[in-house]
């Protein structure tokens, strides 16, 4: 088990290292370099200034050299300065991380609850009307463009009814718990709908598979209470694939959060990365993207571990 963990951890580090180089290289291929930007904002810079700044910023060095220098600093926690936020990239990132964590956490839990309830209800009687309805809703949920869903929610609840704020995170001078919730309502709803719709299909499939097993028949034949059969025996068995899929869906949740945050002007990581890329904030974009990759990799690792822990049949020799 320890060897398995270590080897998986090593893989995570390796993928992260490769990704950091790839992303570093890609960002360098984005239009404009930092000097171009300075020239745009200050047209009075002279040719000598340009050359001096280029050397100062190390832009005359080859890519690998710059990457290694950046990597060495990053390992010590120095991800450079954010151009847009005029503070260290990490300090710009951290408060956003908390916001995104809240948004994703709430949506994830809600979606998981809904998916579990609906998936089990559907799996109980496959082919029933309820099953068809749930399937239709789930298909609708995975087929709706998330930003359009967000727009429609804004149109109905913020613009027409005026019940909920259309964006932002807190109102001035309030910032209390209720206020936070009011601002979270629409983004969380958007993300939850999309997320629950895709999860429900996995839960249903896993439950149907579990209910087909012999021991379920045995339990039923013995006259066990149907609720116990469902929630006890079957669910426990179905949990393995469900947990795996949930953990794997984390990366997707991140993409969903990016869209949701942009629509609702919610100051989270996703929007930060988007703004950083569009705003040519190289350091911030790099730090944000790497962080997103790390979170996704860790979620996958968690899936592997959960799989190993729950399912004793898997061996790790």
């Amino acid at each position, binding site marked *: 088990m320890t060897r398995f963990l270590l080897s998986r951890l090593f893989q995570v580090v390796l993928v992260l290292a490769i990704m950091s180089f790839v992303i570093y290289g890609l960002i360098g291929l984005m239009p404009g370099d930092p000097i171009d930007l300075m020239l745009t904002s200050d047209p009075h810079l002279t040719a000598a200034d340009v050359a001096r700044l280029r050397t100062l910023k190390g832009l005359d060095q080859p890519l690998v050299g710059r990457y290694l220098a950046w990597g060495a600093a990053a390992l010590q926690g120095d991800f450079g300065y954010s151009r847009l936020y005029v503070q260290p990239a990490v300090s710009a990132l951290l408060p956003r991380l908390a916001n995104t964590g809240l948004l994703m956490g709430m949506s994830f839990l809600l979606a998981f609850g809904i998916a579990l309830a609906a998936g089990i209800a559907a799996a109980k009687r496959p082919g029933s009307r309820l099953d068809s309805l749930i399937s239709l809703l789930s298909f609708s949920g995975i087929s709706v463009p998330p930003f359009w869903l967000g727009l429609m929610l804004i149109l109905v609840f913020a613009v027409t009814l*005026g019940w909920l704020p259309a964006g932002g995170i807190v109102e*001035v001078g309030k910032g209390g718990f209720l206020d936070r919730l009011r601002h979270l309502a629409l983004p969380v709803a958007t993300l939850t709908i999309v997320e629950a719709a895709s999860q429900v299909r996995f839960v249903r499939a896993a439950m149907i598979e579990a209910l087909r097993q012999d021991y379920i028949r045995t339990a039923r034949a013995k006259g066990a209470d149907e609720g116990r059969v469902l929630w006890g025996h079957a669910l426990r068995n179905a949990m393995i694939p469900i947990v795996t899929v949930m953990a794997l869906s984390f990366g997707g949740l991140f993409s969903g959060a990016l869209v949701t945050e942009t*629509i609702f002007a919610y100051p989270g990581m996703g929007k930060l990365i988007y703004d950083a890329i569009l705003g040519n904030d190289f350091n911030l974009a790099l730090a944000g993207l790497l962080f997103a990759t790390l979170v996704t990799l860790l979620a996958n690792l968690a899936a592997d571990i959960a799989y190993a822990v729950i399912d004793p049949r898997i061996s790790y020799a």
Partner: protein
Amino acid sequence: MALFCALMAGSVAARDSLVIGVSQFPPTFNPNIDTSTAGNYVLGMARRPFTTFDTQWSLVCMLCTEVPSFDNHRAEIIELPEGKKGIRLTFTIRPDARWGDGVPITTKDVLFTYEVGRHPKSGINNAELYRRITGLSAKDDKTFVMEIDKLTFDYAGINDFDVLPEHIEREAFADPEQYHNRSRFDTDPTNPGLYFGPYRITEVVAGSYIVLEPNPTWWGEKPSFPRIVVQTVENTASLEANLLAGSIDMIAGELGPSIEQALAFEARRGKDYTFLYKEGLIFEHIDVNLDHPILKDKRVRQALLYGIDRKAISTQLFGGKQPVADSFVPPLDWVHADDLKTYPYDPDKARAVLDEAGWRDDGSGIRRNAAGERLTLELATTAGNRTRELVEEVLQSQWRKIGVAVRLKNQTARILFGETIRRRNFSMAMFAWSSAPENVPRSTLHSSEIPSAANSYVGQNDTGFRSEEADSLIDRMEIEFDREKRNALWHRLQEIYVEELPSLPLYFRSEAYILPKWLKGVTPTGHQYPSTLWVEHWRAVGRPGS
């Protein structure tokens, strides 16, 4: 259910404070590091420049006692080594000016600011200003003398010289290279000693809002709101929703919705708010590359301008709030000439001019010249700017009608400004110049400012406009102190512009202020200095519930 009801309850801002909605959060509060519109807007309440343009577009003193002039002997011409002329200016800081912590503002602060500004590694933005100031010395605690290496008619303004508190910032400047990271404006933005305006910043929630409260050391009229909150809502559509919900009181025009959005909002809720539209100095135009084989023919440029219905664009898309531009000088500027040649929409004339220029319609709908080349051009603008993308498609459709095919080639602002325009790799590019009142167009129209590989692409005359007469007019107007004579030079320059059309003028942009009916005293300026520089005059009159 109780929770649900509580969530649904609308919220209303506190009754005595003023909540201003803006679309951007300032990246820094240090006035010298990043001069963003959002930063200027907030700092307008908390600090004041030495000089600025007032709402009537004349130069006034804010932190100083008197605008220098030759008459009051605060300005005198000096001879510079190479036979050039410079100017020496004497400013006196208001005797009652004190930082928010009670420390008087003195020449020590001014000298410190100069030291920071001059330092090559301090990372400040407007290095040019400090480069031009060749000497600065203190006469006493309140009076200082400044020497500038260039003599121009607008010598008296030092609008962008933003004084820094030496007693606070000195420590942060210990390592100049790290100054932009360590400035107290960012590490300790609520420090009262950083501000001296009618308000000072008392709370900052990064990315969300900024709270300002009255500053006890303020010397002028007592501000009337006990609290002003500047709330950032990045999505302009939700700015509106927040306004309707009552969680913000007003939307700042400097950082507000586009004119189309404001008009749409006015159409629906016009009676509940005051809508102020202020046309300004932002000049939307299409720069034309004068070295382009087709566009270097003046007649083609003129035909292109005759071929677009700018009036329809102005009235239909912008509700008439953004006037058609006849030249690069806005109508509000006193040097604007009203008797210039204009180019009203006249597709027949456009076709005739193109015929004359050798571009004939061969029946395919697109004109060709004698060599058989098609009249196809490219128009670039900033991708993602909805207004420009719309206008672009209108132009494309209208030019099609006079037999000109235009390909749209949009690029992100970074590429467009950072590379395409600077390196002059374009045929036509639509964007805006923003300028100060009576801003001499040296950087955009003087032939010495054409960016090229030889000068590392410095300069903004990206059309490649070369005219000896224009060069000489620009050179002369900069040093012409007589208003009447200068006006004549301006007039001639505008005549040349409308005849040669190095760029196709479109319209002047407006800002839309959406204010509550009870708020009085807000005066949009129309130039780049924000309305908050007069925030102490803002009053609530007949505010419901107060």
